[in-house]
């Protein structure tokens, strides 16, 4: 401290404290504040709320929110509607995740080699992704109602009661809807991954006498494995976030709650019925569940050699 020139020391010390370009702090500050206010604080607040007795009070009223331990969690976990909603989400994921991953990869591989009508084909698969759910729900309602086009095509094979009011079919239809809606985005992810697969691998496989199908299984699938892990996790998160479809397509999670999702229950209990503490606990459970499933998948997909 005593040996160096004072000005340089000051500068060095500032650099040590703030980094070489302190202006970066100012540039990033609005975004950092945004993250703190919109993500970090509500995140903490949500966890806090789930351990307390929280309810909506009249504006300005000072009310007590006593600590209640795990009561909200107990209430959420023993609620039959919540159990049903989680069962529904499992049905949704079992259909949606494999279908999304498989179709997206196969279509991306097919699209990657296409020379003719490239733009038309890609745009066709992406369009549902860029369109509002609310808009396309309208046309699915029209297609799948009891007197809709799908039933007139199927004639006597049409399920009775019809798709969206049938306890067995409501959730699968939602799973197909979401697969169709989101597939374009996942095709895009796989197309990006396919650009990084070295051609030499395919040439080597050809030399070894592999046919197209064998190349797909032994070269393409392992080469895009990290993207597959990402696709599975993003599809899981989309599934866990399900709200618009059960709210609109099946009229609020009907029939008899057969298509209710956890987020729909969070909305109904937390906001409509004024039990935000219950909904916050349900949210924490949902996120923990998603993380556990995502972690297992990641281990399974990335760790298998």
């Amino acid at each position: 401290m005593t040996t160096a020139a004072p000005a340089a020391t000051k500068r060095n010390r500032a650099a040590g404290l703030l980094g070489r370009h302190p202006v970066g702090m100012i540039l990033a500050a609005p975004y950092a504040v945004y993250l703190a206010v919109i993500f970090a604080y509500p995140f903490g607040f949500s966890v806090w709320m789930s351990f307390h007795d929280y309810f909506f009070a009249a504006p300005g009223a000072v009310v007590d929110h006593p600590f209640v331990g795990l009561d909200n969690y107990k209430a959420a976990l023993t609620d039959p509607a919540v159990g049903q909603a989680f069962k529904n989400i499992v049905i949704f994921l079992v259909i949606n995740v494999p279908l999304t991953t498989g179709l997206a990869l196969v279509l991306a591989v097919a699209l990657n080699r296409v020379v003719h009508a490239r733009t038309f084909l890609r745009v066709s698969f992406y369009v549902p992704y860029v369109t509002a759910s609310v808009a396309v729900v309208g046309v699915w309602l029209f297609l799948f109602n009891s007197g809709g086009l799908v039933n007139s095509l199927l004639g006597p094979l049409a399920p009775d009661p019809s798709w969206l009011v049938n306890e067995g079919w409501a959730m699968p239809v939602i799973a197909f809807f979401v697969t169709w809606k989101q597939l374009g985005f996942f095709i895009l992810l796989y197309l990006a991954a396919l650009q990084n697969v070295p051609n030499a691998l395919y040439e080597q496989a050809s030399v070894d006498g592999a046919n197209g199908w064998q190349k797909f299984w032994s070269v393409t699938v392992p080469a895009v494995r990290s993207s597959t892990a990402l696709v599975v996790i993003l599809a899981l998160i989309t599934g866990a976030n399900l709200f618009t479809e059960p709210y609109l397509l099946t009229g609020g999670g009907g029939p008899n709650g057969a298509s209710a999702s956890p987020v729909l229950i969070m909305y109904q209990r937390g906001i409509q019925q004024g039990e935000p503490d219950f909904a916050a606990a349900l949210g924490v459970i949902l996120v923990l569940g998603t993380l556990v499933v995502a972690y297992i998948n990641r281990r399974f997909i990335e760790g298998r050699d």
Partner: protein
Amino acid sequence: MRRWPNVVRYFLLFLGALIFLFPFYYMLIGSLQSSPDTSVKGAFPTSGLTLDNYKDINERVDLLGSLVNSGIFTGGVLLGTVVFGTVAGYALARLQWRGRGVLFALVLLVQVIPFQLLLIPLYVLIVRGYGLADNYLGMILPFAINTTAVFVFRQFFLQLPDDLFAAARLDGAGEVRILWSVALPLVRPALLTAVLLTFIGPWNEFLWPFLVTKDADLQPLAVSLANYISNVSARAANPFGAILAGACVLAAPAVALFIAFQRQFISSDIGSGVKG
């Protein structure tokens, strides 16, 4: 031998494309029919098309007003993302400052925190705490800076050659000056990609604006159309016609923008943005 798989591939791809596009075609046709014809022949009408359904939905949902609300909501998010997102992306990619690593870790973390966990606390804070129900600011706030866009910006700034920055620094340019006159002009294509990516979020968003707007005059089109579907449609003369007409109006801007700029959705750009 090589021709066969190719023919099969094109056949399957075109078949898939038709399945993907059919609901959009049917949406348009359904919106133009005076009464719903759900027979197979009804999907290919030759006459009797009318714009009455658009008049009908416009009487129940203020289409123009809702579109303006959607526009303000989306515009606010775009403005926040472009102004604050670019500079944050630049600071994360090109500048050394204390806390950069922490912020970047947060950026990654935010992408795995699902919105549903924040739903209730954000509602309590914004609607009950700040009194921003039925307010554009309350609508925009949770989406104000799109994290995926920050990511895309960071990737693009990282890809610029180091020499460029070294040269500008040697010439005595300050960091803000380098951002403004060297880096930003070079990432203009990324800006368009990020704007398009960001656009579809708020334009299509339903859950949050649905929670914060009870006043019909402030609702974006996705919300007013959804309310029409769940509440009023039972009483309309041709409910499906009116729903589909509204759906066409809601879908058209996003689809048109996407088709016009589809080249910006280059796979590698978005892939790199998402994968980091």
